[in-house]
């Protein structure tokens, strides 16, 4: 009878130990899964926010490398001396260039700086060919955040007006039927 009781106790002991070990392993797995679940949650939240607000990227500085491979030091923008950045598209580079040459002629007395960004090889090679005529610098390699902000703005037809560090750039529509050299020049000079 005692031997049988001992055997039963041993068997329950083994079961208890195995159960306890399994419990520890499962709790550990649960903790790891929980950590990953937390990552998935923040990850998805981040994605949703970003996908919903692609336009919210800030334009930080007109810093980069121009079409000749020279570094471009960011301009000091202020309310009295705004800096206007715009994208030149390769597929319509001739009309874009002539538009901005006209703008620069109309605004040369104004206290403003114009900076163009090229959206690829078609644009940059064309700009290199006409460089002596250009009264503004053209960036070919830009910082990711600012370049993305400008590309986003340009897709809606806007240029960005910088008026100082930490201040939200002003968006001005320059692509479209209603935008002429005269009214854009006036708007840029009015700032």
């Amino acid at each position: 009878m005692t031997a049988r009781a001992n055997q039963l106790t041993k068997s329950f002991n083994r079961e208890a130990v195995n159960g306890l070990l399994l419990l520890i392993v499962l709790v550990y797995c649960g903790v790891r899964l929980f950590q990953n679940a937390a990552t998935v949650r923040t990850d998805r939240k981040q994605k949703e926010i970003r996908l919903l607000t692609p336009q919210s990227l800030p334009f930080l500085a007109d810093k980069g490398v121009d079409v000749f491979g020279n570094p471009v030091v960011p301009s000091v923008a202020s309310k009295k001396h705004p800096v206007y950045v715009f994208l030149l598209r390769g597929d319509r580079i001739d009309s874009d260039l002539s538009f901005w040459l006209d703008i620069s002629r109309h605004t040369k007395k104004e206290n403003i700086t114009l900076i163009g960004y090229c959206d690829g090889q078609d644009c940059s090679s064309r700009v290199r060919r006409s460089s002596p005529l250009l009264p503004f610098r053209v960036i070919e390699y830009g910082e990711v955040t600012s370049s993305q902000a400008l590309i986003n703005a340009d897709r809606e037809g806007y240029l960005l007006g910088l008026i100082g560090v930490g201040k939200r750039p002003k968006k001005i529509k320059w692509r479209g039927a209603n935008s002429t050299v005269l009214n854009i020049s006036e708007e840029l000079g009015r700032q």
Partner: protein
Amino acid sequence: MTIEKITNRVIFPFLVVVILFDSGLWIYLKAAEIYGPQDPNLVYRSQAHPQYIPPPIGFSKENQNVSPVANANGRWAIRYASPKCHFSEEDEKRWSKLASQLRIKGYQIITLVPDGERSYSVGAQSLGPSLQEVYVDLGWLKHFRLSGTPTLLIFEGSHGLIWSHQGELSIFDPINALHEIDYWGKH
């Protein structure tokens, strides 16, 4: 209380609860993976995206030209990250493991950073042997929506972008990425 009672009344009920909890979490993770926005097309700006895109030419913070060349199979990857981003830091552990797998498979890795202020110092551990570009060709940038760090883009020759991920890598992402690489490598 006897051992039998402890086993029956404490450990086994606990086991059932933990098993249910773990299963629930596992199903949640799986569902998040399957139904999460993982389509590479999301990072493209337009539907008419090119099949083959060469790696972006760029410049370092010191204005040194960086011209990455994809390997013979056209394999290269972009990691958009920042040393000042909490999510990029958190992602570091999984990314470094995946990066070493990518290197073994012959991938040229290029790190893009948001701007000069948020670039990795030369020799930083996070950077590894990858090339870092601070000023990036807009002709390349215009194709993609790089709106947050970390973002990972993996390219495979003529197939173009085969895998992308915005945000921290989850436990399944490196497995998914390597699976895609193997799949496209054979096709």
